[in-house]
């Protein structure tokens, strides 16, 4: 009998626990209920929001998560929330793991893991130079990672590729990522021949891409980044507690016998630098730098033909990092590139493939605090192809500026991400390479949460921005701000602050050609402005979602926007709380519009679930409407009965 009571109690506790765990976000429930309600009135149902995976041939690089979201595109909301949930810690470990987990191919049953080796024997070949045991232990671990663990993982990743194929990736293939300002003056035939050449590169890539086993490298990258982070934190704690006296450690060295090569000493080999608390200058192709303080100047180089992993740690000071070549400043190319800047107002002047970029590699730029400036051209600031590229910025009012293919940008098998935890930030991308196909006077952005594939050839990756606090400004021109293209996902999650999203076209929760794009903005009085194909638009079997939960927001657009489906796509705009203002210039294809195409239609849904709202367009406060389209409509009703407390939930 006693055991029976224990069993019953146990069952009750279990059931209670399951119920508690199963309770989902009430806001999300309202949104789902509202969607179902509106859809029923339109003779639709939530399960209609699905796409086939095989509108185009399923290629070997398609990510499992993209397949899943293609079939269930509304799950983008959940996916984005989960990704953001991994971004609240000081330690980037969680989000790096999440990025890795989401890079599983559809055809892949299990993930490859980097082989943990006992690298102790490697460092034993060295003579210690510094007398501090703790410091030598750190150097020894770094050494083993750089020259043993990481190269082995790169070898495993590329083992099935020929030398020619590897060279092709470093030389020709990366050209497909670049734009060229001279395209503006090129003739159609020249551009066509360039395009055909690039298609040739892509065809060639497709033939051997399945042989690239990126997991080895990425797994080793995340393990190493975790190890380095842990060691830095310990080092800082030791410095703080005076257990580690920098000046003393750096000056307490052995007397080196004459005619002994530096390479024999741990910490002194070529490509290594250890800087003291003063202002230092570094120039060259480094493998490892640890700098203990001062305002330092880094001029960094990297030769992708001779790849190697890089670890740079700067403990304090207002530092300037300059790319002398591509593939620098926390970037990996057939390698792992880690940069940790633990304090100060820093400037990162990158070129291409810089500032947290992974091109067939793993790149992490971690900035602990300070008002920082990130500058770059192409494939920069959280950009990835067949790899992970990430900026993890924990605070300060930062400015991110780039030309194109940047700021949470990913192509095939890539996860590109910016995590910015605090501060009023400015994200600017565009202004250099003209969008010659569409306009004479607008520029490509292709960033700020962009995931893209190589259309008709290879599925794409996942690009995102997670910004947790501050009044942020997102400026772009064409193709940006939670935008996905060709079996890929682009997202922005902005938790708190009064934010501005400005763009011209293909932006703000927009997806094109079998793509997936989403913005979730939780709190703040936000402003969205653009011309068209934005604010919850899906074009050509794509789904774009704009979900703004709290705050009195303003939405402005010209046409094909605000919950518009085009060419059999789905476009959804949901605003849950607040007194909002909606303006559209063209009422024909906005605010709940579905465009007829391929003999049937698209789906456009517009939902405002509470508040007193003002419309200039199809919508009306406290009303339900359909548009003359196939198929679309809107719904502004006091659907959420509880008033918005306006209280921001803090997770930390």
């Amino acid at each position, binding site marked *: 009998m006693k055991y029976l009571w224990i069993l019953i109690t146990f069952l009750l506790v279990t059931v209670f626990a399951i119920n508690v765990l199963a309770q989902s976000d009430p806001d999300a429930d309202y949104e789902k209920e509202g969607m179902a*309600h509106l859809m*029923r*009135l339109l*003779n*639709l*149902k939530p*399960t*209609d929001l*699905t796409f*086939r995976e095989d509108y185009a041939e399923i290629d070997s690089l398609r990510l499992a998560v993209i397949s899943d979201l293609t079939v269930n595109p509304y799950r983008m909301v959940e996916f984005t929330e989960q990704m953001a949930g991994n971004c609240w810690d000081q330690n980037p470990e969680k989000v790096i793991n999440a990025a890795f987990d989401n890079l599983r191919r559809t055809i892949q049953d299990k993930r490859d893991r980097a082989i943990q080796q006992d690298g102790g024997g490697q460092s034993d070949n060295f003579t210690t130079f510094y007398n501090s045991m703790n410091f030598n232990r750190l150097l020894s671990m770094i050494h083993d990672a750089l020259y043993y663990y990481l190269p082995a993982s790169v070898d495993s990743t590329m083992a099935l590729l020929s030398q020619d194929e590897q060279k092709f990736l470093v030389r020709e293939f990366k050209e497909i990522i670049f734009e060229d300002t001279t395209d503006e003056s090129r*003739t*159609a*035939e*020249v*551009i*066509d*021949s360039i395009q*055909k050449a690039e*298609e040739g590169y892509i065809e060639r890539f497709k033939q051997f891409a399945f042989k690239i086993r990126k997991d080895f490298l990425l797994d080793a990258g995340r393990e190493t980044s975790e190890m380095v982070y842990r060691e830095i934190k310990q080092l800082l704690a030791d410095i703080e507690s005076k257990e580690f006296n920098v000046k003393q450690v750096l000056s307490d060295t052995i007397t080196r016998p004459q005619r002994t090569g530096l390479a024999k000493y741990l910490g002194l080999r070529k490509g290594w630098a250890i800087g003291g608390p003063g202002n230092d200058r570094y120039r060259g192709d480094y493998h490892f730098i640890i700098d203990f303080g001062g305002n330092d100047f880094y001029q960094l180089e990297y030769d992708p033909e001779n790849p190697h992993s890089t670890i740079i740690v700067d403990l304090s000071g207002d530092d300037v990092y300059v790319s002398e070549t591509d593939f620098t400043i926390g970037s990996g190319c057939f390698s792992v590139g880690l940069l940790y800047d633990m304090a100060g107002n820093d400037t990162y002047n990158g070129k291409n493939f810089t500032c947290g970029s992974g091109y067939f590699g793993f790149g992490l730029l971690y900035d602990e605090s300070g008002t920082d400036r990130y500058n770059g051209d192409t494939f920069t600031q959280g950009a990835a192809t067949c790899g992970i590229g990430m900026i993890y910025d924990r605070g300060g009012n930062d400015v991110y500026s780039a030309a194109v293919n940047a700021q949470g940008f990913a192509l095939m098998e890539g996860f590109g991400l910016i995590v910015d935890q605090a501060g009023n930030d400015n994200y600017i991308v565009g202004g250099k390479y003209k969008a*010659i*196909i*569409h*306009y*004479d006077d607008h520029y490509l952005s292709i960033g700020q949460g962009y995931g893209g594939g190589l*259309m*008709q*050839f290879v599925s794409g990756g996942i690009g995102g921005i997670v910004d947790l606090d501050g009044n942020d400004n997102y400026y772009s021109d064409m193709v940006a701000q939670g935008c996905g293209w060709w079996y890929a996902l682009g997202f922005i999650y902005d938790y708190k602050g009064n934010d501005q999203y400005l763009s011209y076209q293909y932006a703000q929760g927009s997806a094109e050609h079998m793509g997936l794009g989403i913005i979730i903005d939780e709190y703040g009085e936000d402003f969205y402005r653009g011309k068209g194909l934005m604010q919850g638009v899906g074009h050509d079997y794509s789904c774009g979602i704009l979900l703004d939960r709290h705050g009195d927001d303003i939405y402005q657009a010209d046409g094909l926007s605000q919950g518009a489906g085009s060419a059999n796509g789905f476009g959804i705009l949901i605003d849950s709380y607040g007194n909002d203002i909606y303006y559209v210039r063209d009422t024909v294809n906005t605010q709940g519009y579905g465009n007829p195409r391929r*003999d*049937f*239609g698209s*789906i456009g849904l517009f939902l405002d679930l509470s508040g007193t709202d003002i419309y200039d367009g199809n919508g009306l406060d406290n*009303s*339900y409407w359909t548009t003359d389209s*196939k*198929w679309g409509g809107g719904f502004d*009703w006091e659907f959420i009965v509880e008033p918005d407390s306006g209280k921001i939930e803090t997770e930390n």
Partner: protein
Amino acid sequence: MISRKIVFVTFIILIIFGQVVFAVDDAVTPLEKKIDSIFVIASSAELKYRDMVEPAKDSIAAMGAEAVPRLVELFRSNTAREKRAVEQILKKIGHEAMPYLRKSLLLDDYRQVSRISYTIGEMKDSSAVADLINTAFHKNWQVRSSCAGALGKIGDKAADETIILLLADSVETVRQAAAVAAGRLLIDTAIEKLVHMLGDDFYGPRMCAANALIKIGHKSIKPIIDSLDSENSMVGDLGCITLGNIGGNLAALGVGSQMKSENPARRVLAVKAVLQSNSSLACGLVELLKETETDPVVLFYIDKTLEKYASR
């Protein structure tokens, strides 16, 4: 007119001086190379060439049947813009292109066969009906879907049986194309299947079946009314709206029973059907509903409906 001449002359100069390169690599014969060189402009999307696109298409179309084999090859392009350009040129060539296009329906590459079927449909050329019927059960769903679409656009009743069979296809995109075709061909014998399709799991076939029933018109009313209480709620929901769109007294009265539904969404759709039907006969039922109705969205539609018919 002058500007058109300038554009054309510029275009010819580009060709003469060899500034135009090939669109694809495997052009072998001089004719293929010539077509490719012009096709670069014909398929260009750049703003600065927009005035040259149509002359370039005309130029290839003027070659007539000779150009068709190369155009069919160009259907293998990976660029949607290029494939669209091929379609437009073939349409310009017209009937002359048909013998080769019909033969090409037997090609191995399903992408080509699918595009050819689609293009034949756009050309509305009845000489290909038998070939399309033969291709309509192709193993690839894209081809089946294109064939159904083409048969509907051509409008030849010989395709009725094929379309009815395709209404039951396992792939929703094919069912949807077949439903569109059934509407275009006004296939009375498909009404029962189309009513059943109002409850299809995918919105494409469902909505297209509704449109087909609206096109078929009054013959559809009774079968729809008979199915309004189907266990599959989508059949009744969409049935109401379909009846409203068909319109008339019979349809308006037919949805009357649905105003007693326990589900407010169904009541909304029933009232909306009366609103759309252009028949004031069911207004009494709407007024009656107003006395007991509490749901705000239903009331919203009741008021709209009564307002519309107030003057009648």
